């Protein structure tokens, strides 16, 4: 009876909502129960953005993630705001190219990945989010080319099929760093 | 030999209007036009809130009673649902130019292919003679007992002039029904406004300068004279906009 609660947080424009959507779709293609809930309103306009994703073997109760198993922090305000909310034994992914400080908690596992730098080094400046997703799947299990491909096809519209390959590549970079 | 007959589109029931009120004339003109165009079976009329609230009983076509000022929005819904229907609203000055101003302007802006018959008698009749958006400067009403003071409550709204600045409006004419010649002109204008809709030419509004002898405190005859002396000088008759000829040329 496994349930994983993710909280993605960062600036508007970092693809926070998209990476959450990808994980939700990945869950759906694997016959899991899923929910995705964005923050909404003026804060989306260049302020902080966050979204709650739940992937579960059983029906999802509340879609609101207030105590995440997994936190993805893509900027400092997000880490400051949500670090303490992570469950003991949980996991925090930190974009270390944008967040200079270390995580204070000692009861969680932390993965630092310079996602934004890796993205710009690899000429994919908008895909730091997917580099982190690749890292998540590598560290937490669930990274297979097949499942990732299936979910990507759901979340990227047919019109933008040219984006498939580069998203895949971003996730590979994340998985290998 | 011409024998007087009631138009078919006008129901054979007594109207509730006051003696000398010109609603009856305008009802008849609308019904005559519906008859002449042979459109009764596909016409939907929309009654307002005001003296003509019960117009739904007076026309033999299908009728809808709308909330105060909302007739153009209701007409929009009806016309968008069934564009083959002919849809008209029949509204007074409070309904059209006060509480329903937004609906009026925006239905014109959208160039809804509907016909609006706008009765301007410069007063709220149904509620007993209060100041209307079209009451004249200095006009005495129940709510402007010392005469309409434009410093305090602003100026009358000239609907045709205002709507002539709205790109979507296609045909705007102001007429009166206080003498035979004006009645004949009014009939022509109303017919054109319906004809425009039949031909898909878009938004037409006919403003009819009308009387309210009861609330003006005048005899019916004096009221007709008051239209000439006071109303028409402030609200000049004529065509304010006609895009329909241009459309034909295109």
């Amino acid at each position, binding site marked *: 009876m496994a349930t994983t609660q993710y909280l993605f947080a960062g600036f508007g424009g970092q693809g926070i909502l998209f990476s959450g*959507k990808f994980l*939700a*779709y990945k869950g*759906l293609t694997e016959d899991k*129960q*899923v*929910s*995705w*809930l*964005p923050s*909404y*309103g003026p804060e989306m306009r260049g302020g902080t953005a966050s979204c709650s994703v739940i992937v579960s073997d059983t029906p*999802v*109760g*509340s*879609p*609101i993630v*207030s105590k995440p198993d997994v936190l993805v922090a893509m900027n400092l305000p997000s880490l400051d705001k949500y670090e303490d909310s992570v469950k003991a034994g949980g996991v925090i992914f930190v974009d270390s190219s944008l967040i200079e400080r270390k995580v204070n908690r000692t009861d969680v596992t932390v993965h630092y990945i310079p996602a934004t730098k890796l993205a710009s080094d690899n000429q994919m400046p908008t895909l730091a989010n997917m580099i982190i997703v690749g890292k998540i799947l590598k560290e937490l299990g669930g990274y297979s080319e097949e499942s990732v491909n299936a979910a990507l096809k*759901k979340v990227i519209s047919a019109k933008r099929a040219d984006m498939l390959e580069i998203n895949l590549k971003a996730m590979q970079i994340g998985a290998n760093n | 030999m011409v024998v007087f007959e009631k138009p078919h589109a006008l129901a054979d029931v007594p109207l509730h209007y006051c003696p000398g009120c010109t609603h009856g004339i305008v009802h008849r003109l609308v019904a005559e036009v519906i008859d002449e165009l042979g459109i*009764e*079976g*596909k*016409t*939907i009329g*929309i009654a307002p809130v005001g003296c003509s*609230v*019960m117009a*739904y*009983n007076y*026309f*033999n*076509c*299908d*009728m*809808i*009673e*709308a*909330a105060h000022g*909302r007739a153009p*929005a*209701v*007409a*929009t*819904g*009806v*016309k*968008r*649902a*069934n564009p083959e*229907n002919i849809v008209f609203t029949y509204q007074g000055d409070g309904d059209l130019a006060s509480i329903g101003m*937004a*609906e009026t*302007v*925006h239905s014109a802006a*959208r160039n809804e292919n509907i016909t609006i018959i706008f009765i301007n008698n410069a007063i709220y009749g149904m509620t007993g003679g209060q100041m209307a958006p079209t009451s004249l400067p200095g006009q005495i009403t129940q709510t402007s007992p010392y005469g309409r003071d434009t410093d305090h409550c602003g100026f009358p709204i000239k609907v045709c002039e205002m709507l002539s600045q709205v790109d979507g409006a296609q045909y705007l004419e102001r007429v009166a029904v206080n003498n035979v010649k004006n009645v004949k002109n009014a009939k022509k204008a109303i017919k054109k406004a319906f004809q425009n809709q039949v031909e898909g030419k878009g938004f037409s509004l006919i403003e009819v300068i009308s009387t309210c002898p009861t609330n003006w405190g005048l005899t019916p005859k004096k009221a007709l004279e008051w239209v000439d002396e006071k109303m028409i000088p402030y609200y000049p008759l004529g065509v304010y906009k006609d895009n329909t000829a241009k459309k034909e040329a295109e």
Partner: protein
Amino acid sequence: MADKVLMKGNEAIAEAAIIAGCRHYFGYPITPQTEIAAYMAKRMPKIGGCFLQAESEIAAINMVYGVASTGLRVMTSSSSPGISLKGEGLSYLAGADLPSLIVNVQRGGPGLGGIQPSQSDYFQATKAGGHGDFRMLVLAPASVQEMADLTVKGFELADKYRMTSMILADGTMGQMMEPVALDYDVKPMPEKPWATTGTKMEREHNIVNSLFLQPDALEKSNLERYDRYSYIEENEVMYEEYMMDDAEICIAAFGIASRVAKNAIVEARKQGIKVGMIRPITLWPFPTKVFEKAAEKAHTFISVELSMGQMLEDVKLATKCKGEYVLCNRVGGMIPSPEEVLAAIEKANGGAK
């Protein structure tokens, strides 16, 4: 069976409406429901339908009134402040016995309030949608799937009873994505001989109207409408019972509050607390008899809501004030946490174990 897709609640409502045969949508932008309008703006022109952005919520509801008069399926959607503006139209729709579907994706109030989720339009929806004696069918979805299902159901009920169905959702339901299957066998629309579509010179004219100047005639029309409402109260109540078989503590919650409450109930049950939930799906008609029956076993009722005890009043009425009552709520756009609900359950059970 249709494939499951991930959809936002707002989009699920829009697509389900189209499947239900709705081809006319009128609305005015307001957060957090604007996705419905955006979806309709994209889809309607492609299927011969009509999306029109109205100049105001007032105009939108009156456009709905116009289309409903012609007998076609039609809807509008808004959020709390916008629904207040539609109140006039809701009353006229009721007075003229016109079917329609109205969606309220609630946000915090009063006044301009906020844009975060709320359930504080409960009174407005269930008791006072506008002036005069009238009711609306009020449907409260608790998942994206139900956002879609209840939209289809709402159109069918509206036509069946010639009245307004209101989907009473909240910002969370509108914004969240969940898997949804849009697989419906939509019932054909009933005949509408009252519709104003033109006499074709073949019948007497139809009149759509809510004006009755003779008080005895107006009374008669009200009483006839309330006969219909009585029938609906007997036949159209929908609810979900969750772990109620042995429940000594009964939670009442709908929409997002019921989702939070479920988490708390699961935790409380681990402690052996006999707690369950009645989730009204129809807020009107309210599942009065279900609560009445629950009161035979349950000693305490906890209303979990995003309002100041608005639903709690109906729970008290249904159970004839026989039990203990607790309000577990957050307002203004805040949502009670499962921990807050659990604490209320533990307290009702005689303190934390």
